């Protein structure tokens, strides 16, 4: 993972030094090779979960009605 990650574009985010030290300790002996890698992993998980909550319904009522007709015709309903 580390080799691939290094090829991406990066920016700097500040976190408290105390938190940095705690993370440094907990990633010892895990697959994470740096605090940045761990923070990226955790943030991606949190951001994905937030985005999932914000997502919109993918179809209108009319589209839904047409789809229901097709599903009935094909024997799914």
């Amino acid at each position, binding site marked *: *993972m580390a080799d*691939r*990650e290094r*090829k*991406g574009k990066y920016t700097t985010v500040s976190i408290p030094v105390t938190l940095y030290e705690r993370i440094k300790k907990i990633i010892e002996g895990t*697959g994470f090779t740096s605090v940045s890698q761990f923070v990226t*992993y*955790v943030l*991606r*998980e949190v*951001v*994905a979960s937030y*985005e*999932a909550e*914000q*997502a*919109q319904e*993918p*179809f209108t009522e009319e*589209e*839904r009605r047409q*789809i*229901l007709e*097709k*599903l009935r015709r*094909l024997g*799914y*309903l």
Partner: protein
Amino acid sequence: MVSRPHGGRLVNRVVRGKRREYLRREAGELPRIEVPLTRVIDVLDIAYGAFSPLEGFMVQEDYQSVLDLMRLSNDLPWTIPVVLDVSPEEIAGISEGDDIALYYKGEPLAIMRVEEVYGWDKEEYALKVYKTRDPAHPGVRRVMGMKELLVGGDIDLIGDYSDHLDSYVLWPAETRVLFREKGWKRIVAFQTRNVPHRGHEYVQKAALTFVDGLLVHPLIGWKKPGDYKDEVIMEAYKALIKHYFPKDVVVLAALRMNMNYAGPREAVHHAIVRKNFGATHFIVGRDHAGVGNYYGPYEAWEIFREFPDLGVTPLFIREAFYCKKCGGMATEKTCPHGPEHRIKISGTRIREMLRRGLVPPPEMMRPEVAEVVLRFPNPFVEG
């Protein structure tokens, strides 16, 4: 709640009504590129949202990001490039910003806004996606046969593709409505390109015990010679579901999508696509999407650790065998008996038996399933 589409919005690039008629007429005036069936299938997957959030074929930034980082340039997980290859002759005189028409067998299929034309390194593609440059690998062989340039840009579907498998195919908006009508909130999807044997049935039922419904989602599209034909897979599953699953817990629908045989990367790709169909869980098989000995048996499980933000839960269920002493299907985790009591479920062995017209033992394949397969004069894709 079923899974949200990848990227938050289900893509719909299907043009309907008067605009479609207008664009079909306009297509005749545009530079024309004739595409093969494999690209037609990509166009359909984009237009109907199976490849959400992709709105078209990848531009270079996304292409390179997928190769290097297994993510789109906006950081969303994506592991297999979706590209349109063209020859310099086909693209001559076409500039970025131009519209072109994609045709299949002389009929307009889609309008594409050319955003970028770029060169690509096929060897780099092969090494990063397939982890090999071996031309014996079916995916590598296919990539090496592709044209020299790639064209990126959004597409609008203005045509149709139709064949004898149409009645099996559902698109993401349709499965989403279906799951809602059924009241399913947790759906596990099962990817396959095989007729079902007892091992498949075991993992499907194991997964089904803790979700509301199972989406059996055979992949129909380009496959390598020796694989089962699409219609054989569908009919075999119909028999299995009819005889061995409770009513109303399984949806069988076909997915039009090309098979890449890219092992671990493709396992993630399969999961993302099923998320777009509404699946909340995805069964990742042993050597998922693998071919030959190019990938380790559990590499496709390990790769999922790199994606905490996938939005679909992978289920890793161990390979099952029939244990004569247990009197049923089991796995290493559930059965204490030695190898002398076990019947290994080998897909290759089953294929060989079926090829010779033999019915595999019931511990390997349900007789109702074998009977359906053997009804076809040649159930396998020819070379």
